[in-house]
C-alpha cells in the first residue's frame, strides 16, 4: 500500500522557529515536549512532597520559605491542615496524570514508537500536536488552582463525592479550586484520547515492510497495549469529570444524596450516589495504574537484552502477559472499594481477578530475572535502572498481594501500607522505567552521551534512598498508621513518629540526589561526548538512523525488516547481535 496516500505521512521539514520548536508536527519534537512537561511536573510534585514530609516529621517547626509563599495558609511558616491536604491533592494529581501518564507513554512513546515500527511520523501529526497542547492547557488549568483565593482542592487525587461535589461548604479549596481540578482532568482526558488515537493507528497501519506484529520491539507492544487501555479508561473518566462539574456548577445531583448538612447548611441536592463516583473513577483509576507501569515493562524488556547481550527469555510469553494484564485491569476496580459499602459479595468477585493478575506479573518478573541468568551484563546506568526496576516492582507487587484480599484489606485499607505499595509500583518502578528510558534514548534524541559516572551515582543513591523512604511505610501500615493525615496526634500513632522522621530525612536526601540527574540532563545536552549511531549495540530500528534523527526519520528510504528485536548473543556481522534491518541470515547455534 502506498503509504504516502494515507493521512499523516510525508510532511515537509518546518522552517520557522514556531513550527520547528513550538507548534511542531514532528513526533520527535512532540515527544520531547511531553518529556519536558513531565520534568516540570515531577519537580513540582516532588517539591510539594518535601513540604508534606517535613510537616509530617516536624509538625511544629516553622519553614520560612513556606511562610513567605503562603502567608495565609502557612502563617509563621507552619502549614495548616488544609494546606497539607491541598499539597497532597496536587501532589497526587500532578504525579499520576502529568508525570506517570505523560513521560513513559506520551513522552517516550511518541518519540520512539514511529521509529521502531519504521514510519516517518505518527499517523495523525496534527492531532498529535493538539494532544500535547491540550495536555499543556490541562496542566495550566490545574496549576491555576494554586492561585485562586481559596486555594487548591483538598479532596485528594481521588476526589470522592460528595466532598468533591458539593462546593465551598465542604471546606477550603473546595470552591473554584475543586472545579478547576475537574475541568483540568476533563481536558487532560481529551489530550490522552487524541494520543491513544495516534498510537493505535500508527502501530496498526504504518509499520514498514517486514515489520510484522511479532517483530515489533517489546516497548512498541507495551505502548500499543497501553494506548488501548487508555482509550477505554479515559473515555470513562471524562464523563465522570463532566458529571462532577455539573454537580458543582449546574445544580445537578449525580453524586450528592439528600439530607446532607455541611457547614450547618442543609444542601439543596438529593438522590445522587457517592458510590457512583467511586465506580466511575476506579473503573478508570485501576487501568490508569497499568497505563503508568506497562510502558515501563516494555522499556525494561527492550533495554535489558541489549545490556545483557542475550535475548529476552520468553518474548511471546511477555507479550501475552502484557495483554493479560491489560485485559484483567478492567475487572478489578472494586478492590479499591472493598470497604466502600458496596455489596460485600462483590468484594470476592473483585478479589479473585486481582489475585489472578499476580500470575502475569509474576511471570514477567521471572522472565526478566531469567534473562539476567547467564548474561554478559554491561552495567550502564540504563541497565542498572532496569535491574532496579525489577527489584522495586517485586517489592511493590508483593505488598499488593496483601491488599488484594478483602479480609486483610479490612485492616490495611487507609493505612500507610497502601501508600508504600502504590509508591513502590508507581512512584519508584514507573520512575525507574522513565530513568532507564532517558539514559538509553538520550544519545539518540540529543546526539550526545550522558555522563555515566554521574548516572551511576544517581542510580545507587536513588536505589537505596527509595527503599529507605517506602519500605518503612509498610511497617507503619502494619501498626495501623492512617494515611492522608496532616499530623499524627492519636495515642497509638505517637510511637511511629521516629519512623516518620527517618522517612522524611530519606525523602529529602533522595530528592536532593535528583540534582545529579538534572545536572546530567542539562550538561550532557551541550557538553556530552558526541553519540554514535548505535552506542549500545542494540538491534531495533531507532539504532539504524543518525543521532539525532533527521526530520523524516529514515531519509527517503523506507527500512525493510528481516528479524525480530531479540537477536542478541549470536554471531552477527556487526558483533554479537543482528539488527532488525540486516538481511543476513541467522546462524542456528
Amino acid at each position, binding site marked *: 500500500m502506498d503509504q504516502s496516500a494515507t493521512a499523516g505521512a510525508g510532511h515537509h521539514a518546518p522552517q520557522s522557529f514556531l513550527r520547528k520548536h513550538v507548534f511542531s508536527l514532528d513526533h520527535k519534537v512532540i515527544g520531547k515536549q511531553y518529556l519536558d512537561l513531565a520534568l516540570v511536573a515531577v519537580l513540582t510534585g516532588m517539591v510539594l512532597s518535601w513540604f508534606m514530609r517535613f510537616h509530617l516529621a516536624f509538625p511544629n517547626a516553622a519553614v520560612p520559605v513556606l511562610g513567605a509563599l503562603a502567608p495565609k495558609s502557612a502563617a509563621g511558616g507552619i502549614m495548616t*491542615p*488544609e494546606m497539607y*491536604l491541598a499539597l497532597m491533592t496536587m501532589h497526587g494529581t500532578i504525579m499520576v496524570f502529568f508525570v506517570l501518564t505523560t513521560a513513559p507513554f506520551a513522552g517516550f512513546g511518541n518519540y520512539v514508537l514511529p521509529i521502531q515500527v519504521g514510519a516517518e511520523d505518527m499517523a495523525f501529526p496534527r492531532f498529535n500536536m493538539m494532544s500535547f497542547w491540550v495536555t499543556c492547557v490541562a496542566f495550566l488549568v490545574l496549576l491555576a488552582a494554586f492561585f485562586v483565593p481559596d486555594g487548591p482542592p*483538598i*479532596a485528594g487525587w*481521588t476526589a*470522592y*463525592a*460528595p*466532598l468533591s461535589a458539593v462546593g465551598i461548604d*465542604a*471546606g477550603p479549596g473546595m470552591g473554584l479550586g475543586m472545579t478547576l481540578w475537574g475541568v483540568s482532568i476533563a481536558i487532560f482526558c481529551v489530550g490522552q484520547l487524541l494520543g491513544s488515537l495516534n498510537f493505535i493507528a500508527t502501530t496498526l497501519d504504518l509499520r514498514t515492510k517486514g515489520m510484522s506484529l511479532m517483530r515489533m520491539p517489546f516497548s512498541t507492544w507495551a505502548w500499543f497495549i497501553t494506548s488501548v487501555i487508555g482509550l477505554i479508561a479515559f473515555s470513562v473518566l471524562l464523563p465522570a469529570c463532566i458529571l462532577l462539574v455539573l454537580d458543582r456548577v449546574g445544580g445537578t445531583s449525580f453524586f450528592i*444524596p439528600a439530607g*446532607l*448538612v*455541611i457547614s450547618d447548611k442543609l444542601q439543596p441536592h438529593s438522590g*445522587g450516589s*457517592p458510590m457512583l463516583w467511586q465506580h466511575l473513577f476506579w473503573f478508570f483509576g485501576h487501568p490508569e495504574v497499568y497505563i503508568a507501569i506497562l510502558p515501563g515493562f516494555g522499556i525494561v524488556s527492550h533495554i535489558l537484552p541489549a545490556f*545483557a547481550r*542475550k535475548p529476552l*527469555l520468553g518474548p511471546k*510469553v511477555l507479550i501475552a502477559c502484557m495483554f493479560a494484564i491489560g485485559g484483567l485491569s478492567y475487572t478489578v476496580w472494586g478492590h479499591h472499594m472493598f*470497604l*466502600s459499602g458496596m455489596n460485600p459479595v462483590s468484594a470476592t468477585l473483585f478479589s*479473585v481477578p486481582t489475585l*489472578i493478575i499476580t*500470575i502475569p506479573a509474576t*511471570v514477567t518478573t521471572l*522472565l526478566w*530475572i*531469567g534473562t*539476567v541468568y*547467564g*548474561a*554478559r*551484563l554491561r552495567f550502564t546506568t540504563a541497565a542498572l535502572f532496569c535491574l*532496579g526496576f525489577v*527489584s522495586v516492582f517485586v517489592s511493590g507487587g*508483593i505488598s499488593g*498481594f*496483601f491488599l488484594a*484480599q*478483602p*479480609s*486483610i484489606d*479490612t485492616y490495611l485499607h*487507609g493505612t500507610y501500607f497502601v501508600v508504600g505499595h502504590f509508591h513502590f509500583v508507581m512512584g519508584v518502578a514507573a520512575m525507574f522505567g522513565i530513568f532507564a528510558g532517558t539514559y538509553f534514548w538520550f544519545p539518540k534524541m540529543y546526539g550526545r552521551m550522558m555522563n555515566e559516572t554521574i548516572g551511576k551515582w544517581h542510580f*545507587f543513591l536513588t536505589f537505596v534512598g527509595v527503599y529507605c523512604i517506602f519500605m518503612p511505610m509498610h*511497617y507503619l501500615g502494619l*501498626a*495501623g498508621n492512617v494515611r*492522608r*493525615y*496532616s*499530623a499524627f496526634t*492519636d495515642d*497509638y500513632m505517637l510511637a*511511629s513518629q521516629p*519512623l516518620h522522621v527517618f522517612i522524611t530525612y530519606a525523602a529529602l536526601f533522595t530528592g536532593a540526589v535528583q540534582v545529579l540527574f538534572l545536572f546530567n540532563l542539562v550538561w550532557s545536552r551541550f557538553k556530552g561526548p558526541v553519540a554514535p549511531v548505535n552506542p549500545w549495540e542494540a538491534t531495533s530500528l531507532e539504532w539504524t538512523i543518525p543521532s539525532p534523527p533527521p526530520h523524516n526519520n529514515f531519509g527517503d528510504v523506507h527500512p525493510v525488516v528481516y528479524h525480530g528485536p531479540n537477536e542478541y*548473543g549470536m554471531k552477527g556481522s556487526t558483533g554479537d547481535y543482528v539488527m532488525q534491518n540486516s538481511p543476513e541470515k541467522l546462524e542456528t547455534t
Partner: protein
Amino acid sequence: MGKLFGFLLAVITVVSAAFIVTKHWWLPADISVLGSGIDRQLEETMLASGILFVVSQLVLALFVFQYGDKKDDRPIKIFPGGVTPMVVGAVALVTVEVAVLSLVGTKVWANIFLTPAPANAIKVDVQAEQFAFYFRYAGPDGKFGGIHPELIDPGSGNFFGLDPANDTAARDDIVSGGLTIPVGQPIALTMHAKDVGHAFYVPDLRIQQDFVPGLSIPLNFTATKIGKKEIVCTQLCGLGHYNMRAYVDVVSQADYEAWLKAQAAQ
C-alpha cells in the same frame, strides 16, 4: 557495578525482612472475636510473600553479582529448561496460593461482613460528621427515633436531628460522644454520615468500614477484652480529618449497665 548492586540489594532485602520477622512495628493485640481470622490470613500471606520476596530479590542480587561481562569468551547461558518449565511452575504455584488464600479469606470476610448480628446484639447508631463521631443508643424502649437533618443543632447537643417533642421513640435515645460497650457482647453498629464520606477504624478490633452519605451501613463485632481504644477516621473528609476520633470503651457488663443508667438520667 554488578557486585555493588548485588551486595546492596542483599542488604536491603535482609534488613527489610528483619523488621517484619522481628515484628518490630506490628499490629496491636487483637481484642475481637473475629480478628483472629484476619490475623491468620495476614500471617499466612506474610509467610508466602515473605519467602517470595526474599528469594526473588536474593536470586536477582546473586545473578547480577555473578553475570557481569567479564570480557572473556564465556558464552551466554539460557535459563535451565528455558521458559516453559518456569512459566508452568510459576502459574501452578501462584494459582495454588491464590486459591488457598481466596477460599480461606472468603470465609473470614463472610464472617465479618455477610453474617447478620445475633438477635441479642446491642444496637448502636453511629453518625460521622466533620469532624466527630456520635453514638446513639435506643434506650429502654429499644427503638430509635427518626432522624431529621433539618433539626440538627450541635449547639444544643441535637447531633442526630431528633425530634423528641413529636417522636416518642426519640425521647429516650441516648446520645454519646464515645462508644461504651460491654465486653463479650455482640455489637451491631448502623453507620450513616451527616455530610461527606468518612470511615470507622479500630485497629485493635480489626474492623473498618466507610460511611457513605445517603446509605445506612451495618458493622458487627464483639470485643473480648476490657479497655479503651481509639476509633479513627480513615476516609478523607476535610481539614479536620487527621483529628477526627472517638473512643470505644469496653467495660464489664455491670459497668455498662451503670453507664446506661447514668446517661438515661441526663
